[in-house]
Structures are given as C-alpha cells and as structure tokens.
C-alpha cells in the first residue's frame, strides 16, 4: 500500500462527518444561584480549527464548552454548531447533535467498574437504536468503529481490562476513544490534562492535535497552562470572570496577554514544563 492509498484508507475508516464551525452570538449564562458564568460572549470558530480556551478556574471555561453541546443551556444569546442552533433543541434532536460532538473531561468520567470496551461503546449511544444498547448487542459496524477508535489511541490491547485498573493517561486515552467512537465533527476537551503528570499530559495533548490534523476535527480545549496553549493550539481565547478578554493566535500570545487573562503576574504553576 502506498502512503497515499494508506492515507485514503485511514480517512475512510475514520469519520464520515466533516468538521463543523462553532458560533456564539452574545451568549450569557446565569446559573440558578445567580452566578454569572458567561457575559455576552461572541466568537466564531472555523471548521478544523484547534482552539484553546484559557483562564483561571471559575473564569467560565467549563461553562463555555458546555454551552456548545447543550449540557449548560445559554441563558441568552445563540449558540450554533454548523448551521444548527443548539438552544432550540431537546430530546432526540439534542441527542443527535451531541452524538456529533465528542467530549473529554478532566476526571476522565469513565465507568470504572466496567471494561474499556463498554466505556467506548458509550460513544455509540446516539448512533444506535436504544433497544440495541439495552440488549447489549453491538452491530458489526459499531464494533468496527469502536475497534478503530481504540486502536487509534493505542488502547486496543486493553479492550477487556477494567477501566478502573488503568493509569490516568490510559484512562484519558480511553475517554478519547469513547469520543472518537462518536465519529464526531467537533471535539470538546474540558481541562483534559489537569489530572495528569507532565509527560502524560504532553502525549494526551499530542493525541488531540493528531486527531485535529488527521481527521480535520474542530477542537476546542480548555487549559489553564499557558505553555500548552501556545504549543498545541493555533488560536487562543482568554476568559476572565466570564468575559472574553483575548482572542488571537496562540503562538503570538505574549506574557502580557496572559497577565491580562489571569488578572495577575505569571507564576510557576501557570506553566507545565517540557515533556522530558
């Protein structure tokens, strides 16, 4: 197989979904307790972009990312994924939208007592009829997609292991496989490396970057470490107290920009350090 043929085959095995754009128009979120998590955010992300959202904890990063798949509804304003308005959806429509958006979490959010394979099957929920899930019968197509997803993060050999028995980095890889099994057009990552040691953090960020490049997915990743944002993403969005305070090329962000985002001078804990 020539390299070209291989590339075509690989893309064929991956995603039928094409990357979609993300648009936020004057989005505000106020929680029932009265906390204003987001204030009038407007931004637009092109298909296939790799964007980081940077800010201190409590700055609204997690809320921002959750408005995109409707886990947190916008109190006012509009969120669009491609041409689709998120706010108007509920029930089946919302589940279908979510089915096309992968998400990974700081705490991995795996069902630790079940196998790696079972966890990755969660990614097929929106794409298979409920009765199939309830009976536990995966279609051959689902199995192929799950196998491919596990293989692409190097976790295929551990398919039958208990998720709870894995290391942190391995757990996050399984979580990525779970998201990839959705064959998503957008990938959301909420502080994906905050619970990992530096070398593992770099390899997980590398995985995300590879997904972005190989599959052409739109990737939106929350980070609180400035060097990771600079190194792995092309564009950076800075949030401070729920307001957009920075939007520009990640590589070009200066230390002064970070001081604006953090509202204080740069400290040691804002940097992860190198992989080695």
């Amino acid at each position: 197989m020539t390299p070209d043929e291989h590339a075509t085959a690989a893309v064929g095995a991956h995603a039928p979904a094409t990357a979609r754009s993300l648009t936020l128009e004057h989005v505000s979120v106020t929680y029932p307790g009265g906390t204003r998590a987001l204030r009038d955010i407007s931004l637009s992300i092109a298909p296939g972009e790799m964007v980081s959202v940077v800010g201190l904890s409590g700055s609204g990063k997690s809320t921002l990312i959750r408005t995109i798949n409707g886990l947190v509804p916008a109190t006012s304003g509009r969120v669009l994924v491609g041409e689709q308005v998120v706010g108007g959806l509920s029930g089946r429509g919302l589940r279908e939208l979510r089915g096309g958006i992968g998400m990974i979490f700081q705490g991995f959010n795996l069902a630790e007592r079940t196998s790696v394979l079972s966890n990755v099957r969660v990614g097929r929920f929106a794409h298979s009829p409920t009765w199939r899930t309830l009976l536990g019968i995966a279609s051959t197509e689902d199995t192929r997609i799950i196998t491919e997803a596990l293989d692409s993060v190097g976790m295929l050999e551990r398919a039958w292991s208990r998720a709870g028995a894995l290391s942190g980095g391995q757990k996050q890889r399984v979580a990525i496989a779970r998201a990839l099994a959705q064959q998503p057009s957008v990938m959301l990552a909420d502080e994906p490396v905050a619970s990992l040691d530096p070398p593992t953090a770099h390899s997980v960020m590398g995985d995300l970057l590879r997904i972005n490049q190989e599959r052409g997915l739109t990737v939106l990743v929350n980070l609180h470490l400035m060097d990771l944002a600079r190194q792995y993403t092309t564009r950076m969005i800075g949030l401070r107290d729920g307001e957009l305070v920075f939007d520009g090329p990640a590589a070009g962000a200066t230390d002064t920009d970070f001081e604006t985002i953090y509202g204080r001078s740069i400290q040691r804990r804002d940097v992860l350090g190198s992989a080695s």
Partner: protein
Amino acid sequence: MTVATCLPAIGGVELELGAITRNWRNGAAKLQQLAQPNLAFFPRTLTPMLETLAMAVVGAVTAAILSIPVTLWAARASNPSALGRQAVRFVVNVVRAVPDLVYATILVAMIGVGTLPGVVTLILFDIGVVVKLVSEAIDSADHPYIEAGRAAGGTQSQINRRTVLPQSWPFFANQWLYSLELNVRISAILGIVGAGGIGRLLDERRAFYTYEDVSLIILEILVVVVLIELLSQQARRRLR
C-alpha cells in the same frame, strides 16, 4: 413515655413479673424438654425444611430481578425526574411499612394456604429492602460517567443500562445476598400462618406440646441460617 407504655388501662403493657415466678416450674419443665432435641424427628423435618429453602431462593431471585428497574427508578443518578422518584419511593415505603407476617396472613386468606402466599410475601419484603438500601447507596456514590453518557447523546435508559447498572452491581449483589439471608429466617416462620415451609410443622408440634420436636426444628433453623450466612459471606468476598 416509658411509664405511659406500662399502663394497661390505656392499652399499655402489663408487666407481669409475677407470672414469671408463678409459671416458672411449668416453664422450666418445657425448657428442659427444649434442651433435649428429638433427633428421631429429623426425617420428618427434611421436606418442609427444603420447602423453606426453596421459598427463600425463589423469593430472593424474583425480587432481585424486579428490584433492578424499580431501584433505577428510585435513584437520583438513574432517574432525573424528581416526581417519578418520589412516587416510587412513596410506594416502596408503603410496601415496607407492612410487616412480613401481615402480608402472609392476608395473602393466605386471599389465595389460599400454600407456598405461593409465602413466596409473594418474601418478594414484597425483599423489594422493599433492596430498593431502599440500593437506591440510597447509588445516590451517595459519584457518577461522573453520566455526564459523559449525556454528552455522547445517550438516552437515560442507555446510560442506565450500560454504565449505571454495571457500576452499581456490587450494591445490588450485596443486598440480594442480604435479602436471601433474611428470607431464610422469615420463611422459617411463614408456615405459622399457613404460608408454607417448616413453620407449619413448628406450630403443629408446639400445639401438641412436643417440645423435643420444636427444639429440633429451632436447632435446624439455626444451622440453616448460619450456613446461608457463611455461604453469602463467601459469595460477597468473591464479588469484591
């Protein structure tokens, strides 16, 4: 309050300490009989004892199967609807408020003497215990994977079936075993009201004042209960 409960005039309990001394001789003789179990009676106890065990097993297994959906319905993690949850919990609390032998008495009157009312009693009792304890255990645990399931576009029933259920399996297994232990103890006495098992024989022998036989039956119940407890302890260790 303690004083009030001792006034027979308003329905309290009369403390008949005198009766103990008066009947002590009579009682002592019977206790002496109890101390000498009649081993020759053993063959006659075998069939009812097996029936008791069969009732306990069938009751526990049926209740285990029925408890799965009801528990998922009653737990916050698996049922986001507060109204539905409260409705199920209320019904379960009502079911739990009726004592086991009361069910048996009424059911025997409804569907006739036999093992069936006994088994139904055990099922009702077990569902009450399992649903309450397991749904509370599920509620006190963390379920981060539910957000992941929801983010992947899963329905609540998909999330429950593939993640909440396998994740809560140890809670279930623990309570199922516990309900089996309780069943052996309860089914031993259900026969007193006609709901099958060794209780019938126990009551009959007591009515004939053959306390040596009663003693043997009690001894057997004791042994069987302890054996089942040991067995379920083993099973628990395996499941961990």
